[in-house]
């Protein structure tokens, strides 16, 4: 089920959930795990938790992000969203900051732990930087943003820096990246490689758990696909109904290319559909898929697409479009085919697309053109990230035959006694359920290369 909230309007449900999260800090909860579906406003909640801590509770608050880029984004949002408050960004010496941050008068940059502010404050830094700080003060509150990307052994190194914690993240996305061998801890549900919110609640089941029940980014039509496939244990609904956001194709064209059918399907209200090229084993780089994606984007502009979002109509701009791939080589294959006038189309891998959104998304299907289905390509988190970046519509582009390959897939059987999670099966199930639903609803459009 995707609905949450027993018939209440989504805006109300969303606000009640956020208020409940904020109130945990008035109750002095030592730790809160906040699970959030994609686009539910995690960062928005983090901002409010931080400001509440600094201004209403007069506390020292630290925010841990996973990357510098996330720290920059959060610092920018806080400083521009609360222009009358001062925030601190803690970064290493010599790190180049984005120009946009240098122009924010209420954002102070700290390069040394000795310069940390005293008294009520909000300091933003990445987890690695926090783990190296010398003689740190004891913060009142630590907010960990994108906490499901932080392995527990790294959280442990910063957990002693604060009295209370709020771990905010999306449990359905790509798990923490740990590249070394972890066989030793495979049976440990609170092992050092496990995402820190899961490890924390495994060790301390009494830790307060809350969830955000409304996605502000995804429309209801997408939630119907994404929620059952990737979040069977986290019911949520959409803030925007299907009619609230849509694509309009204003120019009728003659002699339509076959890819136009997929564009028309979205214009008629589908927020998700799949474009299939004839079956072919291509390996990582599939030039025909790359060409098809670029061609579809060109068709959107040729047909003078406009975007209707919450009552506002805007002409389509390349910066409203994103393309997400599983591999860097696929990203490059697409980038090199994008004409100069489409250079603002954002093309990235799923790992780098986490936390980002665009109005329209094109997904190079991770299993397309492959002879096998490896754990990497089957990963439910990867597909979930890919299929949950769009505000209006998403096209999956790939080769015919993925479902058949999934049905023939022989699982490695690499399961562990005592560990309920079976990532291979979960990925397999999610992939298959999405494809079946798309097929059931006739949202799979066959195209020929070059059309």
């Amino acid at each position, binding site marked *: 089920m995707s609905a949450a909230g027993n018939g209440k309007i989504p805006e109300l449900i969303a606000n009640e959930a956020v208020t409940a999260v904020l109130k945990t800090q008035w109750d002095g909860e030592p730790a809160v795990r906040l699970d959030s579906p994609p686009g539910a406003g995690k960062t928005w909640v983090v901002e409010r938790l931080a400001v509440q801590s600094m201004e209403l509770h007069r506390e020292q608050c630290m925010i841990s992000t996973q990357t510098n880029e996330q720290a920059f984004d959060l610092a920018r949002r806080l400083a521009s969203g609360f222009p009358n*408050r001062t925030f601190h960004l803690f970064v290493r010496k010599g790190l180049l900051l984005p120009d946009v941050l240098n122009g924010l008068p209420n954002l102070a940059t700290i390069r040394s732990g000795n310069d940390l502010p005293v008294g009520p404050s909000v300091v933003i830094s990445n987890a690695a930087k926090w783990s190296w700080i010398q003689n740190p003060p004891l913060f009142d509150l630590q907010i960990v943003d994108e906490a499901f990307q932080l392995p527990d*052994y790294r959280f442990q190194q910063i957990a002693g820096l604060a009295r209370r914690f709020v771990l905010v993240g999306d449990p359905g996305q790509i798990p923490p990246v740990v590249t070394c061998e972890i066989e030793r801890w495979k049976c440990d549900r609170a092992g050092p490689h496990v995402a820190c919110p899961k490890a924390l609640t495994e060790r301390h089941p009494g830790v307060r758990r809350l969830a955000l029940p409304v996605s502000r980014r995804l429309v209801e039509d997408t939630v119907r696909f994404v929620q059952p496939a990737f979040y069977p244990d986290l019911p949520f609904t959409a803030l925007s109904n299907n009619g609230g956001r849509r694509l309009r194709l204003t120019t009728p064209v003659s002699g339509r290319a076959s890819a136009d059918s997929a564009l028309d399907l979205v214009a008629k209200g589908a927020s998700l559909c799949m474009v299939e090229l004839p079956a072919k084993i291509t390996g990582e780089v599939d030039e025909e898929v790359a060409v098809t994606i670029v061609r579809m984007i060109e068709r959107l502009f040729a047909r003078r697409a406009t975007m209707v979002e919450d009552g506002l109509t805007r002409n389509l701009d390349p910066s409203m479009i994103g393309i997400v791939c599983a591999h860097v080589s696929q990203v490059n294959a697409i980038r090199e085919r994008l004409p100069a006038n489409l250079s603002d189309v954002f093309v990235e891998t799923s790992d780098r697309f986490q936390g980002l959104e665009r109005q329209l998304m094109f997904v190079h299907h991770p299993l397309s053109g492959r002879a096998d289905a490896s754990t990497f390509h089957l990963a439910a988190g990867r597909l979930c990230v890919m299929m949950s970046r769009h505000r209006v519509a998403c096209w999956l582009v790939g080769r015919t035959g993925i479902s058949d390959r999934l049905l023939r897939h022989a699982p490695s059987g690499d399961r562990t006694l005592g560990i309920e999670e079976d990532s291979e099966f979960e990925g397999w199930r999610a992939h298959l359920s999405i494809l079946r639903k798309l097929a059931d609803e006739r949202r799979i459009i066959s195209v020929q290369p070059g059309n």
Partner: protein
Amino acid sequence: MAGEIDLVARLLAFESGKALRVASHLHVSLQPHALVVCPLAMAGEDTTIHTVAIGHVGKPPEFRSVPDPRFREDEYGLFTWLADRIVAYFDGCRSRGDFPQIWVSSSPAAALLDILADRLRYNRDDLVVKRFGELLSYATERFPVAGQQALMTATGALRQHFATGQQEAEDEHLGTVLVWIEPPAGRNVLAEVAATELIPMGAKTDPTFDRQVLDPLVRDYNQARRKNADPKALARRAQAVHDVLVNVVRPVYEGTQRAIRILGRLNLPPLPALAALDERERDEFQNFMQSRDAGFHLPLKDKPKPAAFKLADREDAMDNMESAVLHEDRLGRARARLAGDVLRGTVRNPRKVHLGPWRFEYSLEVVSQQRVLRVRRRDELSLLLDTRLKAVVTDIQRHGRTTTVSLRLSSGGRAVGLPHAGEVIELGPGAPDWLGIIRTRVQMAERLNNPPWTHSDSGIPSCKPQDGGAPRDLLGVLEGLR
């Protein structure tokens, strides 16, 4: 894309019928005193050793078997015999300030040693066997750490240096890998590989051999034992089991020795990183032995704190090893170039701008035709030719197949100098930082001296509510702070 080099190498090996060398340097430290250990478990009894061949590099093996490892006394006799050799070897290494190195044929043999180490090191009845399990644990616990030199698999070591003409999974059979590396003259390599595959090279005997040869002999021994046969008759039957097992384990031992010889005969310059890896191994071994002397327990399951240290060690080792191979091995560099981890291109617009007294800003562009590039704004890259020169990526522009990366030097402008226009350079990750893990351990030790409640058994602290209640319209109050 990086896999393309290995794929092409495999195809070339297949075409030529001979393995292709895929390393410019030797990646393993060949210890002249290393010990080759080839254990075979009994089918269905994965925590046993039915027979073992053991000997130093270049030396003939000693064999030891038990007629039936299910008899605990016999099995422990074998463990004690093995313990004598392992303890003597480890003690010798320790007294020389060196580290031990154990070679096995392949991953299944390493896994068997791992199981035995886990099983035996908690033994309360037999201190010799317990010691054997503990010492074995040194090698088996080091095994998953990248760049370790304590427990080597012959297949793994060969795979680092050769590409065969078979699938990757098939490279776990030592016999077939050796056939690809040294194919018999005048014979079809594929036919030879197919024949060799029938010869066990791991940690188990062949099922047909078990059924037709081994099982009848073991049954015969057990029957005689049950009937209290006289010692000579029993010994004769035990010898029969031993003889057939030796025929199975001898080729495994010889294959492992041959693999070491092949690596030695390559006469490749050692990867410069090997000196640091040897040093690390010595330190690890000395620390391990001191911990045993001090009576510290080897845990089966880690608590959060030691788990964090171990995982940090492994991540650091992995990063350093990748970096070492990228910097020090030409094939490793080529893989990184294809994977886009190394930026290779022509220097354009090198500029030195005077900012003030003794202050300059150095910048340049690198124009690359690489298909894959994993370079993002704000990444810091090092000049691979001289890693003192570091540069931060300030912009990336892609036009068709040409990528222009703009960089600003962050260090090395004076010491190394700004590259010249038209020069082809390579930029990538920094050199390995072998001392980094020491700093990490010190920092972690300090930080985790008092484990946070989140990672201890102390329970969740009680709630301490804020003074005064929350405002009724909390969201509204926060919006008002904008």
